[in-house]
């Protein structure tokens, strides 16, 4: 969606400023939110793509101004509300009102190391041959879906070159909507900054995006 999260190329935010303390967390509650959200993932009620979709669905003004871990928390609460895991009254009062819904698992402390260590690979057994090869010119689709997409706005309807075939990966767009993993070929596509930004680009610098086959067209066809 063309939401507050799709920030590439926006202006007016000012310079990048490092936190001199350089800590992982600016406040103790941020660490708790990180741990809560990661632990909730083990309940098996949503995928990482659904998490991202929930975060980017916050109103743009909120998304751009809230602390990052509040975005995480609010999105997780929205996911739980949608699934009936929690009620708005429970959130408002922080007291238990309705029985919990069954979940796949509750992550135990003893299992944290193994679960984090295993990760969650996004590649799937390859099916068919990739449509494009390294060196091919491709043209990105001009599509503005209401739902989740990883086809960043600034690189839509642009011509680039395939610089890598990454493999056969779960398609974020459909996985975020719960309509299936729909795995497909994933490519690294390199764009000239001249192509992306015109007079504000140049002929030497480039930007790569990792794009699924559904996002790409053969410019000759």
């Amino acid at each position, binding site marked *: 969606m063309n939401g507050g999260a799709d920030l590439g190329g926006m202006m007016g935010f000012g310079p990048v400023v490092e936190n001199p303390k350089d800590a992982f967390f600016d406040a103790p*509650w941020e660490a708790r939110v990180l741990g809560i959200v990661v632990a909730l993932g083990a309940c098996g009620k949503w995928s990482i793509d659904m998490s991202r979709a929930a975060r980017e669905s916050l109103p743009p003004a909120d998304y751009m101004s809230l602390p990052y871990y509040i975005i995480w928390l609010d999105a997780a609460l929205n996911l739980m509300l949608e699934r009936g895991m929690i009620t708005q009254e429970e959130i408002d009062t922080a007291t238990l009102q309705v029985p919990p819904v069954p979940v796949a698992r*509750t*992550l135990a*402390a003893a299992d*944290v190391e193994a679960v984090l260590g295993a990760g969650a690979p996004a590649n799937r057994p390859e099916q068919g041959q990739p449509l494009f090869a390294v060196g091919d010119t491709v043209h990105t689709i001009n599509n503005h879906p209401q739902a989740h997409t990883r086809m960043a706005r600034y690189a839509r309807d642009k011509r680039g070159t395939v610089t890598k075939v990454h493999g056969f990966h779960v398609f974020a767009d459909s996985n975020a909507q719960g309509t299936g993993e729909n795995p497909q070929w*994933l490519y*690294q596509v390199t764009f000239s*900054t001249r192509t992306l930004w015109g007079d504000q680009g140049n002929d030497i*610098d480039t930007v790569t995006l990792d794009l699924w086959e559904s996002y790409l067209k053969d410019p000759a066809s």
Partner: protein
Amino acid sequence: MTSHDHSHLTETEARVRALESLLSEKGYIDSAAVDEIVQTYETKIGPQNGAHVVAKSWTDPAFREWLETDSTAAIHSLGYTSRQGEHIEAVFNSDATHHLVVCTLCSCYPWSVLGLPPSWYKSPPFRSKAVIDPRGVLEDFGISMPATTKIEVHDSTSEMRYLVIPQRPAGTQGWSSEDLAQLVTRNSMIGTGFARTPKVSS
């Protein structure tokens, strides 16, 4: 639980604590697991992992070649297999090309080798500017890049994660991998910095 139990806390701190209690009561999370996750990312999984990868690539030509041809397998071989590092692409800085990693759409970051992202990496200034004005971003970090050096920005739009292998600093011939790792900063592995140059002893 009511907020007056925690009157010394900020409103947000109190809200998060209350919600954590509620979610525990519901059986969706175990606070001991939350403790363990936080501790893991505060003490075990951090930029020291990536520094190990970089230093090994500087000292072990066979490993460097593996990293160039199959970064994921090479990095996993060192035991760095954890989440947000399932698929990794190492990119190599040189005098000709400087790599910079961003996630314009959220905050994708190679957790397995760098730990949690710093707050600037997740912030709108960095995410908006890195793709349209990468040289300006580098200037924000005090780096002026020659016009002849190509900047290659990697926008992490899929589950592929990017790790920058900075150039080995001059004056480190014969250094051990362990000593070299001490020169590798987190920012040098994102592309907003360089590996430290050793102090010259007189």
